């Protein structure tokens, strides 16, 4: 029976490794951070009549992208508390009144060596925001921000799926994802087309 025994022991080792690698490892690799307050895209879109992403995430005149809005933008409506939620209190008391920018954690932020132009993708290529950011603009909760302990990247860059094999349509923002999309659309750019 020693043959069976070997196989069993081998399989046991295999199973332990698979368990560690697929279940434990992802939890260890990413640390979790919480946004400073619960921002609700859905409420802003539905109740406050913010129709266009660009109203807050603006592309400036020189073509650069403002990214997450500065606190003055929020202060436009929230100079005083609007509603009774905890988030409202945090926003007004901790950020708007003292004039500090809200330390948002940007899920989709690329590292400093990447030059991604929203202007070119949105204005020239006419891509919609959901093409890369999925329907996050309609979400009714803030996600936990997960950061890779080794590389320091947001988990959104790799995507939630560890294997990257069965990803949701807009999951992942690695270079290979950019390349794939560029290939599909037959747009060729050199290294420095997207790096700086």
């Amino acid at each position, binding site marked *: 029976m020693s043959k069976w025994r070997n196989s069993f022991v081998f399989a*046991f080792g295999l199973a*332990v490794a698979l368990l560690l690698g697929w279940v434990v*490892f*992802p939890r260890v690799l990413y640390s979790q951070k919480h946004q400073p307050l619960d921002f609700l895209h859905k409420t802003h879109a539905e109740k406050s009549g913010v129709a266009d992403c660009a109203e807050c995430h603006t592309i400036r005149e*020189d073509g650069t992208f403002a990214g997450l809005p500065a606190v003055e933008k929020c202060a436009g409506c929230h100079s005083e508390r609007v509603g009774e939620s905890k988030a409202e209190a945090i926003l007004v008391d901790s950020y708007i009144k003292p004039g500090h920018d809200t330390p948002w954690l940007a899920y989709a932020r690329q*590292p400093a*060596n990447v030059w991604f132009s929203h202007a070119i993708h949105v204005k020239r290529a006419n891509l919609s925001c959901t093409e890369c950011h999925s329907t996050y603009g309609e979400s009714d909760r803030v996600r936990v921000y997960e950061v890779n302990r080794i*590389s320091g990247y947001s988990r959104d860059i*790799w995507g939630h799926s560890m294997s990257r094999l069965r990803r949701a349509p807009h999951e992942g923002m690695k270079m290979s994802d950019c390349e794939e999309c560029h290939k599909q659309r037959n747009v060729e750019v050199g290294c420095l087309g997207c790096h700086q």
Partner: protein
Amino acid sequence: MWKSVAWDAINEGKAMKVTRRDLLVWGAGAAAGLLATPVPWKVLDDVSIWSQNWPWIPQPTRGPVEVKQSFCTLCPKACGLRVRMANGWAVGVAGSSTHPISRGALCPLAFAAHQLNWHPQRLRNVRHGSSLSTWAEAQSAFAKASKEGPVVVIDGYSGRAASSVLETFAGKQGGSYRVVATPELRAFTPYEQWTGIPAASLGYDFENARTIVSFGAPLLDGWGTPGRLTRLWAESGAGLSDPQLRLIQIDSSLSRTAARAWQWIEIREGSESALASGLAGALLEQNLVPAHSPVPSMTLAESSAQAGLSVERIRELARLVVAKTPALVVARDDDPAIAALNVLLGSLGNRGGIVPHSEGVKPYVAAESAIGNARAVLIDASVPWEFVPQVEAEIFRFAAWDGGATKADWLLPAPGFLEDLTDLPTAPGCSAQTYGVAPALVKATIEVQSAAQFLCSLDASLPTTAKIIDSRCEDLFRRREGNLYGQQIAAIDKVSSVQSFKEQLWKGAVWAGEASLSKAFACHLKEWPAQTRPVSAETWATQWKPVVMPPLASKLYQESGLREPPRRNA
């Protein structure tokens, strides 16, 4: 089947102990399994990404970038700047091509001037002797001193609104106001003595000259407002055998200017004055200039011996100088013998010569290091660090950067690059009057005060720099002369109101008058000036006013051999 395997295994587990082989087989299984998990591949990937984003590598700031027009305030040459700003910090400097004098050019150091505010040698605290002190203590010490006796105020950049504050204070206090002038400005003092026209209102009309004879002045190497002469030289046929503008460089070594000049005349070191006298003799002897001039006491032969040039060579040089006129002689400093050559050549007050550009400029009193009777000396941050007063008085020295050991009782941190509002009077050597305003674009990260601010805070009756600038703008507007060089060039008549004029100036536009040749002046020498002592050769670093250089400057002398390393202060 699986059931039986498991069953057997369990049974055997009961019967058998774990052997070394089991461990090995288990390990092999685990290793095989691990390869089928993301662990090795993801770690490999993440570790390389980590190496691309090492946390200790500095990251540039993020934020909107805007470009502001301003001026370089580090020395009196007043070049126009375009400053790139991000997040309130200056992140890039370039020349402003709309500036009529500097025309988009800058000296090499200006390109990294925005780094100077972070220089390790930045003076960050008020210092009294060797200990730290406070602004309050410095103010009370200065107030006490100025009550007790005369205060000598020393300025390195005359003509600014701040200079006016300093001068007014000195006048009110009963002290005196002295100026440490740049070599470019000092070079005009002989003419001031001969004609009574203040040095600061004279300039060179290079644009109309056809021959420029430079006695060791580094004309192509940071002399005057750098862009003016270099552009002119380049555009008038640099490298051609017969350029439109002939630059004859008389120099004891193959300086940068000599290397690129149309002709280089090699002379012995320090013999510029002697050659000037010899040249005058040769000009007169060959009747190349009108003869109504005093004859130099030095003979051609003596001059030849001193300069190391043959007599024939000097005669040849004389012919060369007048071969293409107007000819203009430029001295490195205030050597009267060289200045007298311009009188001889008739270039004073004439096209392509030395011309006055503004009125109402007061002659300055040059600061000597031996200061007479004084209770205290106040030194503005614009004064070069090399200037060390020799006097038994309490010295209050303003400086943005610490130049090392120099006698000063009080060291007071002054605003750094673009941290202070200042105006920019005409740069020395310009043939037209100019005026610009450089607002404080960057906020200081430490507590700083300029000498003018310091005095204004002590004496509320003094006009502030801002007020003086305001009234100067109004005066200029009222004159209705000249042009405003902003986004476009506009004649001042086209500017609708004084408010708009001021606004444009504050946004970095520069006002420039026109060279007023109508006020031509004559000058006759009674006798040929006596020879002055030779001036030692200047290095490029001494033309730079701040005591420190931006770290990037080491590209020029340390990471390459392009330039000689700066002289260290003792």
